[in-house]
């Protein structure tokens, strides 16, 4: 059902956890639907220097969060915004059709974290 990459990210997820005093926090989904994804980012000079996630969801959701955090770590905000769910799926070596929305969730959580960062950043500057 899942590719080896999905299983690897599910069993050995990268960047699990939370960031205290994160510059941006994104949360999408809801427990009713069985999925909540939370992404924390630390930003320096418009570059994402650290990222962590917590996810309540299926295997694909956990793997998507993991791979997405891996993909944006070290990237600039603009580069991170260019990441789509298709790229997440690609990085996982594919997802079953019924699991496409889990990768969408990862894209949305990412954007939501960046939006949150921008909002905080604007206020600060």
């Amino acid at each position: 059902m899942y590719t080896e990459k999905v299983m690897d990210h599910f069993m050995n997820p990268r960047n699990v956890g939370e960031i205290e005093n994160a510059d941006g926090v994104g949360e999408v989904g809801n427990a009713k639907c069985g999925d909540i994804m939370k992404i924390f980012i630390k930003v320096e000079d418009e570059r994402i220097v650290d990222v962590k996630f917590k996810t309540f969801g299926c295997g694909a959701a956990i793997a998507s969060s993991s791979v997405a955090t891996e993909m944006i770590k070290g990237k600039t905000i603009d580069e991170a915004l260019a990441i789509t769910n298709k790229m997440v799926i690609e990085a996982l070596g594919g997802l079953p059709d019924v699991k496409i929305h889990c990768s969408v969730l990862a894209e949305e959580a990412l954007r939501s974290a960046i939006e949150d960062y921008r909002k905080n950043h604007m206020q600060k500057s």
Partner: protein
Amino acid sequence: MKKVYLDHAATTHVKSEVLAAMLPVFGQSFGNASSIHAYGREARKLVEDSRERVAKALGAKAEEIYFTSGGTEADNLALKGVAFANQKKGKHIITSAIEHHAVLHTCQWLEKQGFEVTYLPVDEYGRVRVEDFEKAIRPDTILASIMFANNEVGTIEPIEALAKAAHAHGVIFHTDAVQAVGQVEIDVEKMGIDLLSMSGHKIYGPKGVGVLYVKKGIRFEAQMLGGEHERRHRAGTENVPGIVGLATALELATEQMPQENARLIALRDRLIAGLSKIPYAKLNGHPTQRLPNNVNMSFSFIEGEGMLLSLDLMGIAASSGSACTSGSLDPSHVLLAMGLNHETAHGSLRLSLGSDNTQEDIDYVIDKLPGIVERLRQMSPLYTEAKGE
């Protein structure tokens, strides 16, 4: 790697005795039971002997047994067959909110055909209340269908009392006993059951064969149309090896039930006790009125699939929600009907035991699951919140 199959409610392997009975029917006694030559008569005899064996195990008469392609077809035939044959008397049907989709989706389809269906709620243990059932009966109620035991949480319904209430008002009573047969003693006559569905592959028999019992005198319309098989109530060349396999499996199960149930209940309760030590764990379903082989527990803050995948990597086969929908992500309609909230319903795990499980298997699961739950909780934002961090 150790392999522990704990998904017997989804399907079982075919026992070697059953396969041995089926084998000669593939290559040698392969005739069409409708043919009048020697090959045909041999096949006919196999079918009719099997019918008698099934009847005997259920407390029915041979002419009350109809072979189908499985539990799903038995349910479809029971509901559509009785509804259409009796619609002149009324168009109201009663069922429960926790039925298998084979019953629920058929009921929803019947609603589109102009029938009215009442879906009874259940209590926190998944039991239909007899009072609710009685209150739901109307003058135009023709049929009630309440499952014998639930496939997800293993709760056994008060079938005798429900059947009695139905009969007091002239309502025909069907029960989906796909999960109960082989684990609960059933005597359709004594219990007042008018129609009963069962399936081969849940009792160590083959897939692709099932039975609908219909009490003599109850009218129902054939749904599969064609030849005059099964006394004109189910067309299609008889699946002779499948039928022989089902009969053999049912006989075996009936024979072994007393000892096997005691063994399973001991294992089941050991498993429940062991897993209950995990924090925020909850047993779903009735503590005692439950199938000997069913364990269903919720572990808050995490989602079922993650548990399944992790268990699978350790060689343990389990299920979350019903087998038929474990590929989908809706939370179980059964757990929601029992009043669980969405999160808890999402974190449910079903472990269903069977003939091949040992105490060692159980202890292996008790050993492995706590770590899995903890690891997934560490990733879960809900857990962080709950702990007030």
